[in-house]
């Protein structure tokens, strides 16, 4: 792997609610290299989006990052002031959200929004900012950019709106883009177009990409490395081939088995019993043990990440499904 753009160590983001402490992100560590695509997979409530928000410094009370280091290109993001973090956000580190209608301001034209994002971080003339905005729209595949710059968000289709959101993220050539389920709300053919653009951009610009999704098939085609999250923790990490080809964690295996296209038609799906535990006052030990076929007394202790399977693969389980090879 090339030198890391982003290193996250022992990140914990907890929400201190009246009902108790919700450990939304609990001891998460990973790194992303230049031009690398890291897939962050998990079901709803697994903490994958909260990990993204934590990196962006977007956690609101009652939530708080209680522990951990987030280092972007040698800069410790947690040590920055609010002002310093604002200079990073949208500049060195950008985020694309699931719903582009929430990202874009409905009463401002696209050019106003894009130029504002450039001038916030760069001391350039209005005209050159506009030229850069136009250029970026071309880069993400928006036809007739001059007309589109003067349009309002509601005049775009869903897929085009998401392209604009991606263009805004790209404006200042960030080192890292966090994409939080950006294609989930889109039709498959439009999703294919967006994935094609993103794959091309990551390759050409060398921007590191964290792709947050619940869709394993997107990850399989797009990512270099995968982190699987469950109940606020990363339970398995490794290259795409390792994790999806020879999963070591019973949860990863269960997730892959649940995908209908991996199963024989008309047969019962191999399902994971039960459901995701509530993160509120989660008892110690492996959070998956209630649903796991391999769990035993040992699992009431919290397992640590340990190597398993291929050279890059680590797993948080006492009973990994594959041994080191």
């Amino acid at each position, binding site marked *: 792997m090339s030198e890391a753009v982003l290193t996250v160590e022992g990140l914990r983001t907890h929400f201190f609610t009246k009902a108790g402490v919700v450990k939304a992100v609990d001891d998460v560590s990973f790194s992303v290299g230049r031009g690398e695509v890291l897939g962050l997979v998990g*079901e709803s409530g697994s903490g994958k989006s909260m990990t993204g928000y934590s990196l962006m410094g977007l956690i609101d009370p009652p939530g708080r990052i209680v522990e951990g280091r987030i280092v972007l290109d040698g800069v410790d993001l947690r040590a920055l002031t609010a002002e310093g973090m604002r200079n990073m956000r949208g500049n060195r580190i950008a985020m694309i959200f699931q719903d582009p209608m929430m990202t874009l301001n409905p009463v401002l034209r696209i050019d106003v929004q894009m130029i504002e994002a450039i001038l916030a971080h760069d001391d350039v003339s209005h005209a050159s900012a506009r030229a850069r905005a136009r250029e970026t729209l071309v880069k993400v595949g928006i036809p007739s950019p001059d007309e589109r710059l003067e349009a309002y968000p509601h005049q775009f289709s869903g897929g085009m709106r998401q392209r604009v959101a991606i263009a805004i993220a790209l404006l200042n050539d960030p080192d890292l883009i966090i994409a939080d389920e950006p294609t989930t709300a889109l039709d*498959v*053919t439009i999703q294919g177009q967006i994935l094609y653009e993103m794959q091309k951009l990551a390759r050409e610009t060398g921007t590191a990409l964290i792709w947050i999704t*619940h869709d*394993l098939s997107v990850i*399989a085609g797009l990512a270099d490395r995968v982190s699987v999250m469950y109940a606020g923790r990363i339970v398995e990490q490794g290259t795409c081939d390792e994790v999806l080809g020879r999963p070591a964690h019973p949860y990863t295996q269960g997730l892959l088995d649940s995908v*209908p296209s991996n199963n024989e*038609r*008309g047969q019962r799906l191999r399902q994971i019993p039960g459901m995701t535990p509530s993160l509120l006052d989660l008892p110690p030990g492996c959070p998956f043990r209630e649903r796991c076929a391999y769990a035993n007394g040992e699992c009431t202790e919290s397992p640590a990440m340990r190597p398993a399977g291929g050279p890059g693969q680590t797993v948080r389980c006492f009973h990994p499904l594959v041994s080191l090879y």
Partner: protein
Amino acid sequence: MEPSDPDALVELRGVSKRFVKTLDVAARIGNAFGAGLKEEVVHAVDNVDLAVAPGEVVGLVGESGCGKSTLGRLAVGLLPLSSGERLWRGASLAHLPPAGARKQQLKMQMIFQDPYASLNPRMRVIDIVGEAPVAHGMIGPKQRTEYVGLVLNRVGLDPTLMRRYPHQFSGGQRARIGIARALAVKPEFVVCDESVAALDVSIQAQVLNLFIELRTALNLTYLFISHDLGVVRFISDRVVVMYLGRVVESGPSAELFAYPNHPYTIALLAEVGKVQPGKRTFVPIKGEIPSPLDPPRGCHFHPRCPFAMDRCRESAPPLRDIAPGHRSACFLNDTHE
């Protein structure tokens, strides 16, 4: 049009659904002065034939705005037809007396997409599931508790939870409540409109397994509407692909997925992710779905089709048999002959 299929449980013959935005007073006054404003008409479903045999699972796929949900609602009788005919076991449903229509209607039920929006938050589960069978006189009010318990058991919910409200359940459990509500009146034909789309993968697998169990246990017939081709391939015997209000291809599931014929189906299948490690290059089909307010002339897919010919811009290709049970609406099939 095909002759009516005597074996079909439900059959739609040449049905269309148009949604018309009528002119308001201001527009009519404007027209009196020669503004020339026209009514806006959306052809949500355009002359579609669909037959579902007893015990069959038909998957209906397409992207948003293609009319698949509207067709589902037409099939179940939630929307009136603009034109065409709806048959139940070979007999038209249009001219039945109200009481007879009500009785037939019970045999067809729908399970909706959103397990949050489709359950009344102010009703307890026992009322949600038990209301219809009591109202239709299938059970007496006193048997309600016992009956609802049986139905909940059937869908894998604990009957002791029947006095709870929907918000006290998880997404997967709510999906099961929606299924229980539909099954409570003992339907023969169930339309599932994106019924697993809102669920997580592991919960989706559990609910899909439930659909398969219920199908064999209760001898149900499904029209399964989904945008997720992986789900449709898994559950369906036969697949119908829609694009902008028209059926472009239909055929047995195994055959259609192995040998797709219509360029749109081919493009759609290329986007179905398989969870196979190894990077793939995403090859996009160009363009977007045109607005159904102003669909393109001829074949609706021609502006995005890599094989479009002059003919495709002029007239719409009819659905033709290309193999037994496999039909496709594309002029390319003519040139191969």
